[in-house]
Every structure is written in structure tokens, then in C-alpha cells.
């Protein structure tokens, strides 16, 4: 039999002392204090009945903890991971979550770049010149995306509920909530839930929020060294022909 038709010669022999790459399904995550994953190497271990003896391997890189959906919780939708292991599986490591391979002609498992950019542009945090080809996505799921523009160094951390941290060359933008910027954050009658955002540039910091609470024993505004003259009062005060009205939306 020619070697290419011999199934065994197509695989690394069991005695090889070389780590090979295998795909595995996450079976379970051990208890707290054990950062390893129990995995089922695919397709090799698909029908091994001794589930307790399936490999429990640590992350490949120190300082990482890899998690994902497990067979223990959702048998059908467990995540896949790449593993580096000896061919007899006596020693192995989990490298990270594995991607799907969908062939040469299509790839449906891509992040939603179009919606992402529209959302960012509406919030004024990216320019129209942002290019998909410059964005190095470090990790994304349906609920989370973390990426870097490798040309500009801009960093984006975004959640599907609208929360984001954006660090660009000219500004840092922090936001909680998905409200539209055309409906101001301080509008209690807005059609969408309110949001809070802080935009910080070299020239100003702008804060949008339904309720700004500052808790400090001393507040300094400007550098004149003067004190603000004021009175705490629930009703207007008349003095020397002037009426001082209370600002009901500022409380001390």
C-alpha cells in the first residue's frame, strides 16, 4: 500500500515526542482554583465513554484562562478550542477558542462591521475614513468586540448594549447605554433609554448624563481663587430689586 493510502501514515504516530495541533470541544470547566479545561479531542474522542477520563489541559500561555460554552451546559453548542498535544494525548495544552472553516467561497462567521461603524459614527467616535482593513479584531462574540486600528493605534472596546471605551488619537470616549446622541442624555422624555457619556479631548471634557452627581468636599472651577456666592433656598429670594431663583436641577 502506498503511504498516502495508509490511514495510519497520514497521522502522527502515537510515539511522537512532538506537539501536534488538534481541535477539541470544551466538555467542562473545573471548579474555581483550577484554570484548566476538560476537552474532547475531535474526532478522536467523540465516542469515548469514560467522560471523567477525558483530558484536562491547561492554557497554552501562562496568564490566560480560556473559557467557552461547555458540553456540560449545552451539549450541542459547546465551543471548540485549539489544542497542542502529543499524539497519544498524554500531555496537552489549550491554545484558544477555535474558529469555523466554511470553505473557500464564503465565510458567514464574520463580525458585523457595517453596523458597528454606523453605530460608532453616530456617536462621533470614528471618522468616515476608518477602514475595515486596518482593524485588527482581538476578540469578538455576539456581545463583545475588542479591536485596534493598527495604523492609528485607536483602541475600541464595545459591548452590544452600547457600552464602549474608545481611545483615539484626539479623544477618549466612555459611554454607558445605547441612547442616540441626537436625543440628548438629559431629556427625560427621550424615546430610548437614557445614556451617559464622557468625551474627553485636549480642549474640553463634555459630559452627557441624566443625572450628574459629584461627591467631593471641595470643588474648584477655574483658577481665580474666588469663592462662588450662593444661597441654599427652596424658594426665590428678593433682594435689592433682584430676584434670585433656585436652580431646581442643581442640588447640594
Amino acid at each position, binding site marked *: 500500500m502506498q503511504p498516502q493510502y495508509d490511514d495510519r501514515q497520514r497521522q502522527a*504516530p*502515537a*510515539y511522537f*515526542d*512532538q*506537539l501536534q495541533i488538534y481541535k477539541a470541544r470544551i466538555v467542562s470547566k473545573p471548579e474555581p482554583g483550577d484554570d484548566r479545561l476538560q476537552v474532547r479531542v475531535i474526532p*478522536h*474522542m467523540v*465516542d*469515548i*465513554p*469514560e467522560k471523567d*477520563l*477525558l*483530558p484536562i489541559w491547561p492554557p497554552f500561555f501562562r496568564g490566560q484562562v480560556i473559557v467557552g460554552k461547555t458540553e456540560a451546559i449545552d451539549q450541542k453548542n459547546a465551543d471548540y478550542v485549539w489544542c497542542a498535544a*502529543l499524539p*497519544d*494525548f*498524554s*500531555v496537552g495544552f489549550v491554545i484558544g477558542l477555535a474558529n469555523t472553516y466554511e470553505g473557500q467561497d464564503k465565510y458567514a462567521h464574520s463580525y458585523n462591521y457595517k453596523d458597528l461603524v454606523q453605530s460608532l459614527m453616530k456617536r462621533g467616535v470614528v471618522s468616515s475614513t476608518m477602514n475595515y482593513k486596518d482593524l485588527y479584531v482581538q476578540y469578538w462574540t455576539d456581545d463583545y468586540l475588542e479591536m485596534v486600528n493598527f495604523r492609528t493605534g485607536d483602541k475600541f472596546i464595545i459591548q452590544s448594549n452600547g457600552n464602549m471605551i474608545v481611545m483615539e488619537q484626539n479623544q477618549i470616549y466612555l459611554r454607558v447605554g445605547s441612547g442616540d446622541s441626537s436625543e440628548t442624555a438629559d431629556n427625560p422624555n427621550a424615546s430610548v433609554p437614557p445614556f451617559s457619556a464622557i468625551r474627553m479631548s485636549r480642549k474640553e471634557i463634555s459630559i452627557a448624563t441624566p443625572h450628574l452627581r459629584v461627591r467631593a468636599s471641595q470643588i474648584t472651577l477655574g483658577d481665580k481663587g474666588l469663592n462662588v456666592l450662593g444661597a441654599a433656598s427652596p424658594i426665590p429670594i428678593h433682594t435689592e430689586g433682584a430676584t434670585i431663583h433656585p436652580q431646581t436641577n442643581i442640588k447640594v
Partner: protein
Amino acid sequence: MKEPIVSAYLDGDPESIPDISVKSIKVFASIFSSYPGAEITIDDPEGRFLSALYTKPGATITIAAQSGGVESSSDSPVLTFCPFRVIGVSNKGVLLTDSDMVQLGSLGGDYVIHLCHPWAMQSDWSNHAYRAKASEIVKKIVSGSNRGFAFTNITIDPTDDAGSITRYKIGESEARFIHMKILPYATIDKQASYSFVDELGGFHLRSFLRMYNQEPKMAILPPRSDAVATLWDEKSTLEQMPLYDGAWWIGRKFLEQIGNFKKVLYVEDSLSQISFVANLPYQPAIPGYTLMKKEYVDNVKVTDVSIYPYRNFEDAVRLNVNNNGVMNEFFQVSVTVDFAPDLAVVGQTTLLKISGYETTKDHWMNGKWLVAGAEHFQKDGRYYSKYLLSRPALNNLPTDINPESLYKV
């Protein structure tokens, strides 16, 4: 003198292979291979067996034998070799390199039936994970009967390992799993382990020493003559067999063996991440003299280096011990005697008792040897047993050799 009788039955039918048509029956086994094989040659000048499609691959053949002996002795018990399955049928002319011609028109000639132990074809292929001592894993596997036949005679020595490493049997036969994933990491009394099926069908997981410690049933001597009369002992409790043919090879694997005398091992234990550089002097299965010059071994610091990355320390050390198993073949002798599968099969011992250059002196080869390989065959109408005998060191030396000059292990 009664000649041995060897017969073969096809699928249990005693009439199916007429003894008169059998040209030869050969059975062979070795402690280094998983299972024995056999070959039956039937004289078929007219192509009768071929035209009737007489045997088919997968068919069962039983080979039974009755040893010979002196006329006055009572009949020996019938001994049945392990069951065999037909794995092919051919005649000698089939290969392009063969010069033998067959009978034109009928494709007659020698009808050769190739046989193998059923384990070659029948196995439990299911996937499993095991975490137990190697000997317990092997016992669990061979004790199973989910393969169409069962081993009736099992000898398993306890292995040294703690059984803390999980072994995965995945897409492989039982024999392959044992040889590829268990045996390399299994030692017995800190010595290499051997897994094999003998000619009679017994399964073994044993060390050289434990096999060697068995008492022999047979002594092999030069053919009776006045010159060697003193070697023959009429009161011997062992069966004394004349040596018909012999050969020897010292150092057949010398270039592999020499490295084991002072090996250095580099291991990074995957559990503790501690690196080891271990000097491992050779520990023989049985002590004695090698023919290595003492000064050579004493004067060299290292004879070989092995590097085992990624392995657990326990596995790496045992792997090295099994690599040293080749030392057990340092001295090899083949001997041909009368048909004797009732007296010795692979994994058993025999006593060699031949004469020296001066017939009154013992030969340095004399002593107990392990049967590492065996072939029971027919030649010129007579049946013989040929044994490959092995041992790692010698107890005796010729009187004119200074033992001080040789490396003793």
C-alpha cells in the same frame, strides 16, 4: 523412533486437509511480535484445491501435533497450537521475482495457506480511556471477549508504574494499542516488558527476567557419540534433545546496544517543569559478563544520549528502560532440534549443554537461555523445532579468558 504427527483441520473438519497432501506445516512466534503466524503448504500439482476454492481468507484452521519419541514410550498427548485464521492463499510463482513455474492450464503446484493468530483480524476496536497500572489495563483488555475469541491462558506480571497517566485507545486494535501506547511505558521490576502471544495461544506480559526464571523442560546436547557421552545424563529430569543444527550471532544489534552502557537522559518533566540530566548506567536483566572490553566502558564518559521532551518523568524513564531491552539480545543462538513445542515455546527457557573445542570441557555458551523466537517446521518429511535463544550476559567464560578484562554487568 516415532515421528511426530502434525495435522491441520479446516473449520473443524478433520478430513478437510488430507495429511497425505500436506507438504509442510510451519508455525512461528516471537516475544517481539504481538502474535504468531503459520504457513501450510499443500501439494496440489493439478490445481484441484485452487479450482475448488478450497480455503478462503478468514477461514479457521486448527493445527494439532503429537510429539514423537522412542518407540517404547507411550503416546504423547495431542497438543493444539493456537487457533489460526487464513489471511491469504498463494503459490510460489505468484511474485514477479519468483522463478517457480506452475502447471500450465490448471495453475497447479504448491498451494500455500498463510495463517495468522485471530488477533491479527479480530479485535475490539472501540475507543476507551484508561487510567490504571499498565498491567491492569492490559489485563482488562485481553480478558475481554468482545472480539470473537477469548484468550484462555493469560500471564501478566505486575508493572511498576503508578497508573496515574491516562492512556487513550483511539481507532486502533487491542494489540496495536498495547504495543504503541502501553508497552513503551511499562516496566516490570525496573526491566523492559514484552507482550506477545505464544504458539499455543497463551498471552504474556512479562519481563525477560521473570521469563528467564522459569525452569527449562529441555536440555539441548550434541548428538550422541562417544566423544560427548559424558554430556548425556541418563538420570536427567529434563528431556534431552540432540542438536541438529545451530548458529549464533554476537552483536547483531551491537551499534544499538553499545549506546546503552552509559546513557545520558535529558528529560523535562511535563508535570513539574523540572529538567533532568540523568546518567543511567546499564542495569541488565540477568547479571554476567558481556564481551565488552572493561577498559572501553570504564574510559568513556557517555555512550549515548536520549532526549525526551514533553513526557512525564515516569514515562520518560520507563521508555528508556524499554529501549534498553535490546540488550537482552546481546547473545543469540539458534538451535534446531526434534519437534518440541511441548517442551519449549516462546517465552520459556531451555538449557544449552554443548561441548567445548575440547569435548571434555564445557562450552562458554552453556547454561539457561530464553526462547525469544520459535519456528516449528517440516523438512524432508521430518518435523523440527528451531529456537532463537537470547540472553544479555554470560555466566561462564572460557578458562583462558581473563574475566578482569571484560565488563561485568
